């Protein structure tokens, strides 16, 4: 699905990522690391928001490194950004509809997708006419995930989905991720490692712009470095 080889990129002259080799197949993959490790930069590079300096990014064998964000989205990569990036002055339903309206393989199936998203997040159905900007943080996060799912993604990327949410909503979000992982490839970056290890098959640890560890979810749970630095045990 997604294959990154020898990726090097950054902002201005500042190098953030170096020698990144990374792969997401038909599975759910976690990307962990402390603040400033480069998780969001890696996602930005995959989504075409920053251009790679070196290396390649491929989606199902097609090079997407350096392509425009909208092109990558139309190829089936859906992003749930840390900042949600919703359309605050538009209704919940319009936000969801726009998630699919410009995606070639999803635009003709909007009513069905809408029903599926409403099944996953019933609160969005209740608030379908409400402006997105007037919703609470947790509801906005659900809307951002729902909007991404509207595009029938081949690869769903979630950047810190639990950030700033109360524990009950975090649990709800991860339950949804667990229910999705059989049908969609998922890449999730998280600082809440404990919760995300329950929802992923495999994970990478990114520190100072380099991948320092790669293992299965079970392997990561018992890895001394992960246990000490991320699980706080």
């Amino acid at each position, binding site marked *: 699905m997604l294959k990154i080889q020898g990726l090097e990129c950054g902002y201005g002259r500042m190098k953030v990522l170096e020698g990144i080799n990374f792969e997401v197949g038909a599975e759910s993959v976690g990307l962990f690391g402390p603040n400033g490790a480069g998780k969001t930069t890696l996602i930005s590079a995959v*989504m075409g*928001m920053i251009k790679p300096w070196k290396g390649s990014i491929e989606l199902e064998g097609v090079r997407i490194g350096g392509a*425009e*964000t*909208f092109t990558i*989205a*139309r190829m089936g990569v*859906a*992003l749930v*950004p840390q900042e949600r*990036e*919703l*359309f*605050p*002055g*538009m209704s919940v339903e*319009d936000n969801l*509809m*726009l*998630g699919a*309206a*410009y*995606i070639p393989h999803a635009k003709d199936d909007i009513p069905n997708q809408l029903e599926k998203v409403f099944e996953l997040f019933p609160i969005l159905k209740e608030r379908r006419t409400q402006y997105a900007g*007037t919703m*609470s943080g947790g509801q906005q996060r659900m809307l951002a995930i729902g*909007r991404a799912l509207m*595009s029938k993604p081949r690869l769903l990327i979630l950047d810190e989905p639990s950030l700033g949410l*109360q524990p009950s909503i975090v649990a709800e979000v991860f339950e949804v991720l667990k229910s999705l992982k059989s049908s969609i490839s998922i890449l999730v970056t998280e600082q809440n490692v404990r919760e995300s290890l329950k929802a992923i098959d495999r994970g990478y640890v990114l520190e100072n712009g380099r991948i320092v560890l790669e293992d299965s979810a079970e392997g990561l749970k018992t890895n001394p470095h992960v246990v000490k630095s991320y699980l706080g045990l």
Partner: protein
Amino acid sequence: MGPSLRRHNLNIQAVKMAIKQRKAIIFAISIATAVVLILWKPTVLIYGLQAAGLYAAVAIPMGLVLGIVHIVNLSHGEFMMLASYATYTVCRALGVDPLIALIPAALVTALFGWVVFQLTIRRALKAPELNQLILTFGLAIAFSQIINLIFTSQTYKLSLEYSSMSLDIGDLSFGVWSFVFVAVAVIYAVGLQMFLTKTRTGKAALAVGQNPKGAAIVGIDVYRTYGLVFALAIGLVGAMGALFLTKSAIFPGVGSPFTMKSFSLVAMAGIGNIPGILGASVLLGLAENFLRSFRGTRDWAEIVYFVLIIAVILSRSLKGKKS
């Protein structure tokens, strides 16, 4: 429902209530003003509304560009001036009426707007706002100077019977053709509102205006949308250029005051508030014509928009300080 969510919902209710109250107050003041003017100075109401229509029809496309592309187009009025000259030339050469040339004028101006956007404005979108202002100001100067070179500073006007139609009601006699601007302004406001809220392209444009990064994430080509919206706005102002020619004389500097007035109306209404531009235009049109109705204040009418824009900026600054 948790306490924070309940508090959040209560806040939303309070804001909705405040908006309703404000709308009711504005409506009551508008009705009272209209009644006073009908009884005291009906011509102020008639010509004020006609002027408001013209101002709004020119300002609405600027509001569209500012609300979605987020640039202040200081060459806005000059695009209208170019369309007026193009229409004049075609009407003279082919002997057709400007109303027949209106749609072709709009299409050609829209195409020209798209080309100008792609060649110049698109490249300045990521630059600081000052660069964008300088760029569009430069375009305004270039357009008016090119017209000056080709047509000289002489004024041109078409003589059209229908534009001097008048209506007599009792002792009152007034021109009616300028009400066409009111109709166009309403059509623009309603049409754009429908376009932005009911069509896929319109919703995409609205999404781009609210969050370009979010729009790209859902597969919308942000720069293509910017180009489309800019071309649409220039097309609308181009149609106004053709219509303007039916009533007024044109000269190279005719567009510039419209840029300034449009900007002040858009600023008064608030970014992206198209119906608000209609209201602000009525206020400006009435205020100008009210001053014109007295001999002592006639010459002050042209600076009303300055006073209004200063008042708006001051009140927003004070509100900002308070919050």
